[in-house]
């Protein structure tokens, strides 16, 4: 058991697809919240193999896409401060802020390093004691505990030049915001698997209970998604709405208690700005008082200047699931992966990028 190829076997997929076709009677719209799911769905052509009764819409589950321009501008402003080294996951490099991107300021001489892990950022801090190393803390509940761990390690090893710009986002509050807006009607939700590996499945209960929407936590292999869709269909046809896990090998109902404890120790919830959705209460994380000396926002005098949104870009509507990339007049014309206007085209998990790269609906 290596936990990957076993879940890509085409002969098992065929059985599931047949079962979904047989079971699904009621027309439904399911949202995959998570950008990772969007990628699997497009990469394997899953929409093409589902029956016509099932419509899939993509949600706002891409941390890069939902980062507000104002926050990107802060990161870019930080990179221009002398003796600051920016460390970031590769995802953020190309995303355009109001006036520039990290990739562009790097070309202009800013010290920007792509890292795979906060452990690498800590190493860079150790090797450059006279400089300040700022880590751009993007990500959902999956990533936030790893950033929390890096802060604790920095404290243990007395690293004095490591800072975090905390742009973390929390998933359940934003799903509530989307459902409350009533803009998009859903009959099922594919819950994010790796967020749930940390928070467990209980935090999704309110969706099933308060909104009557079936929820199934899914993994990221094609068989995981198909199984998840099959379980959602079964709930629909049985008239149920509950929270189930189709990814039991990776997710326990109670989540990862140690990770939650670390997250809780370092961060506290705060309001956060989501692109296209606006401010959502208790959907962000800021450093607690005892750890404020690691907070890049407090440690540096950041002047990001005024924020602009790209004209004509409907990434916000796409993130809410109200529109699809095909509805955007910039899509594939003014906005391509090479010359992206909005974040959904930049991020490899963005809906626009997935539509563009994998060519939705090209048929058999």
């Amino acid at each position, binding site marked *: 058991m290596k936990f990957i190829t076993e879940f890509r076997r085409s002969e098992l997929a065929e059985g599931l697809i047949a079962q979904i076709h047989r079971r699904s009677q009621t027309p439904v719209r399911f949202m995959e919240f998570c950008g990772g799911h969007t990628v699997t769905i497009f990469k394997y052509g899953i929409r093409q193999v589902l029956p016509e009764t099932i419509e899939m819409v993509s949600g706002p589950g891409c941390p890069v896409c939902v980062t507000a321009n104002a926050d990107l501008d802060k990161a870019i402003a930080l990179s221009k401060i002398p003796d600051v080294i920016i460390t970031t996951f590769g995802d953020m490099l190309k995303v355009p802020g109001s006036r520039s991107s990290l990739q562009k300021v790097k070309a202009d001489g800013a010290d920007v390093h792509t890292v795979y892990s906060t452990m*690498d950022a800590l190493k860079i801090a150790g090797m450059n004691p006279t400089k300040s190393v700022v880590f751009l803390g993007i990500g959902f509940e999956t990533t936030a505990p790893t950033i929390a761990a890096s802060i604790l390690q920095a404290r243990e090893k007395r690293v004095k030049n490591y800072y975090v710009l905390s742009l973390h986002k929390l998933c359940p509050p934003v799903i509530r915001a989307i459902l409350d807006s009533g803009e998009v009607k859903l009959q099922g939700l594919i819950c994010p698997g790796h967020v749930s590996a940390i928070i467990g499945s209980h935090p999704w209960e309110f969706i099933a209970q308060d909104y009557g929407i079936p929820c199934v936590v899914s993994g990221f292999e*094609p068989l995981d998604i198909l199984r998840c869709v099959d379980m959602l269909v079964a709930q629909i046809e049985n008239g149920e709405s509950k929270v189930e896990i189709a990814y039991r090998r990776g997710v326990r109902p109670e989540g990862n208690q140690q990770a939650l404890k670390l997250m809780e120790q370092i961060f506290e919830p705060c309001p956060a700005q989501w692109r296209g959705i606006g401010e959502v209460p208790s959907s962000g994380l800021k450093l607690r008082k005892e750890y404020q000396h690691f907070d890049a926002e407090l440690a540096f005098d950041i002047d990001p200047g005024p924020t602009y949104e790209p004209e004509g870009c409907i990434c916000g509507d796409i993130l809410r699931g109200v529109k699809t990339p095909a509805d955007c007049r910039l899509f594939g014309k003014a906005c*391509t992966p090479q010359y992206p206007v909005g974040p959904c085209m930049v991020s490899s998990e963005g809906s626009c990028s997935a539509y563009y790269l994998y060519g939705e609906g090209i048929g058999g």
Partner: protein
Amino acid sequence: MEDKILLAHGSGGKLAHELVEKGFLKAFDNPLLAKLDDSAVFNLSGRLAFTTDSYVVSPIFFPGGDIGKLAVCGTVNDLAMSGAKPLYLSLSFIIEEGLPQGELSQIVDSIYKAAQEANVEIVAGDTKVVNRGSADKLFINTAGVGIIAEGIDISGSNASPGDKVLLSGPIGDHGIAVVSQREGLSFSTQLKSDCAPLGSLVAEMLEASSNIHCLRDPTRGGLATTLNELAKQSKVSIRIEEEKIPVREEVLAACEMLGFDPLYVANEGKLVAIVPTKDANKVLKAMQQNHYAKDAAIIGEVQAERPGRVVMKTCLGASRIVDMLVGDLLPRIC
């Protein structure tokens, strides 16, 4: 000899002569180079192929090769992909001052070995040394000429509907081997770069069939980018099957970890061939008998509809478009 390369090594003075004589002439000993005239002078007749490329890989040493081997193989392969028999190479070094002589000798040695294997001669060269920070250790430029036999017509615009698409072996080895050495990403693997001269492979393929339509080595941008180039140049579509494309377990694992798609990862010792159906099996067999293409496979075919597109059948039986690489491959979390 100094143990590091100094600016004076590129000045044209005594140190420069010492470097050329002790460093390069000895290694690449051949009559054309030994004359030390301003140009190499030789006779050739027939249709010639001529190409050039620059090598700036970082780090300059990686599992399975170094920048020197890469510089020879890259240019030899570019010639071979035109159906040419590679003959002569030029070699130009741009060295950052401070490069250890030992590293340079090691690279010169692997250039020598690669050139020997590829059966080409280094007949012209140049060395420049630049200030620290003006280059990253060592850049190499090579140019090469080769000769194309009568009756061979290979070009990226020759693919026609019905042709089969052949791939010489598993993809992504070079890109992942190099990435494994990068600062901040370091992971260890037995995986080696596939960097290899493909002149003999091409010669054997051409012996099996002189009707090969296209040959191309999927270097930067990977298989996906190469197939897109061919589809656009020939105004056809290319349909491939995911399950037929060989990928090593290590490459797949590294790609999963870093968020790469193996279709976009660089190769330095692989080729794609587009061949008329009637000759496809003959060519495939010839490939499989060559050391560098044991795992060659037919991965798809050329179609007329939707010109310029590359479409892949996924393991679920659905289809998706495979586009060119955009920008850099960056490790990502999303």
